[in-house]
């Protein structure tokens, strides 16, 4: 059904091109910036590209431009630790993220691009009675929503994670964990590229190195955007700019309850596969998973003050190493290869802000904090539906910007904040 100017990726195609020494065509094309589009999406990350893809694929809206001030997938979409899960605390959150897991499960087939979704299981460790209580609470909420999630004890954890120190002698003994088998990791670059390629095939234009410097608003209605490559008129702008959401929204005159915090992550040299599950410890502010190449990927909680700086700090590395070794003393000799930081747009209730704003035609997909990547597909699907139908889908109704004015916050901190 879908026309692919770039050809379909398949094993047969791979062998054919390999034998014939034929070059692969570009996965997405370059375009001159047009004078007008039906929809302009700001931000070519997983949320922006998914929004554009679902607009074209599900709603037939193909006159869409995705603008990015840098390169595709260069923000949070390429800096996250690629973990996907749906074991949240509120029924709203669980339903929403579970839809995302379901979309990720068939994303490779939908996009004709191997996104390497590996449902290897996800463990959230509990080191105190308070955490155990939250884990039991989450397990019950999850089960009610049909999400596979259960509380397990130290013996079962030791079986799942061979090098984990589950003894009672540690500074923060492990009392149990929330085990979530459908959770896992996805190759985040592949998700960006897959959405970009599939959207391009449907006629969406992706413009990299195109910064939006102004949003033209007249009578509280969007008329167009001013970019570094010229003016584009459009009735609808969707902002999917994560850490930069406050700055982009300010261009339209919309103020947000968001602070931008850096979150640092690091990766070790590759070693033989030993860690199957994703392991998270809220108390120790750390999460660990092993990539298919064998590297251990570590993430932490956000830096304790807002900043737009993406510089790594020695303090972070030192603290991270200490916490990881408290969990797995056996990996003390592993060396870190590199560390980096991404920007997280934190909201007061650890939940996103999606949907309409007081400015007609300016739609928000923001406040993704530390959980944006795992929600990419469902956010794109929901935002596309909102743009196409003009109605806010039920799935994202709890996450509107108006909830702050109405005092109707979501309360997802217990399951979304690593450092809770």
């Amino acid at each position, binding site marked *: 059904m879908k026309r692919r100017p770039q050809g379909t990726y398949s094993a047969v195609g791979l062998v054919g091109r390999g034998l014939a020494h034929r070059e692969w065509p570009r996965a997405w094309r370059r375009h001159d910036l047009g004078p007008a589009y039906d929809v302009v999406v700001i931000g070519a990350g997983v949320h922006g590209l998914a929004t554009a893809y679902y607009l074209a694929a599900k709603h037939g809206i193909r006159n869409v431009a995705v603008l990015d001030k840098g390169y595709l997938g260069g923000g949070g979409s390429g800096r996250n630790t690629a973990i996907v899960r749906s074991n949240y605390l509120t029924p709203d959150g669980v339903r929403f993220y579970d839809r995302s897991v379901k979309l990720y499960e068939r994303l490779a087939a939908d996009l004709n691009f191997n996104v390497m979704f590996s449902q290897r299981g996800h463990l959230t460790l509990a080191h105190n009675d308070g955490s155990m209580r939250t884990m039991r609470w989450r397990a019950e909420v999850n089960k009610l929503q049909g999400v596979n999630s259960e509380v397990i004890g130290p013996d079962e954890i030791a079986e799942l994670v061979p090098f984990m120190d589950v003894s009672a002698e540690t500074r923060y003994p492990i009392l149990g964990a929330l085990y979530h088998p459908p959770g896992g990791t996805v190759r985040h670059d592949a998700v960006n590229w897959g959405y970009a390629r599939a959207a391009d095939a449907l006629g969406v234009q992706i413009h990299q190195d195109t910064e939006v410097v102004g949003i033209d608003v007249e009578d509280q209605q969007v008329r167009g955007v001013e970019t570094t490559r010229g003016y584009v008129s459009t009735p609808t702008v969707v902002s999917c700019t994560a850490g930069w959401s*406050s700055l982009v929204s300010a261009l339209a005159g919309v103020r947000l309850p968001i602070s931008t915090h850096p979150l640092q992550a690091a990766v070790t040299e590759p070693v033989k596969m030993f860690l199957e599950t994703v392991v998270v410890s809220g108390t120790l502010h750390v999460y660990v998973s092993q990539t298919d190449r064998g590297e251990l990927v570590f993430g932490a909680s956000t830096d304790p003050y807002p900043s737009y700086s993406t510089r790594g700090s020695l303090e972070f590395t030192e603290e991270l190493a200490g916490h990881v070794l408290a969990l797995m003393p056996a990996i003390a000799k592993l060396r870190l290869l590199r560390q980096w930081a991404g920007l997280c747009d934190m909201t007061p209730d650890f939940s996103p802000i999606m949907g309409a704003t007081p400015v007609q035609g300016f739609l928000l997909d923001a406040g993704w904090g530390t959980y944006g990547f795992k929600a990419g597909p469902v956010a794109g699907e929901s935002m596309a539906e909102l743009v196409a139908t003009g109605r806010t889908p039920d799935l994202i109704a709890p996450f509107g910007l108006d909830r702050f004015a109405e005092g109707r916050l979501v309360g997802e901190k217990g399951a979304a904040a690593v450092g809770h």
Partner: protein
Amino acid sequence: MFRIPCPHCGLRSVSEFRHVGERRTRPDAATATPAQWRAYLYEQDNVAGWSSESWYHTFGCRRFVDVERHTVTNEVRPAPATDRDTAGVDPAAAGSADSDGADVDSTP
């Protein structure tokens, strides 16, 4: 990592401080509308550039400190002279930190 000039303790590591937030004007309780209160509670400027903000010197003098910080480079400079702390170490002024914003909205 960077350091913050505390008017009472001198130049100290950021790890001694807790970030309190952007400095802003508290609405008048008698006349504020619910919308103004919500905006005061939740909305942030969140600028990428010089930001006027308060820090609390947790592991030091345990006083509120006002500074300007560049949120991209984390460069820090003292708040301008209209600031409550440079006006003197009046216990009443220090105690009312964040609850009395009458003198803080003139910051550039």
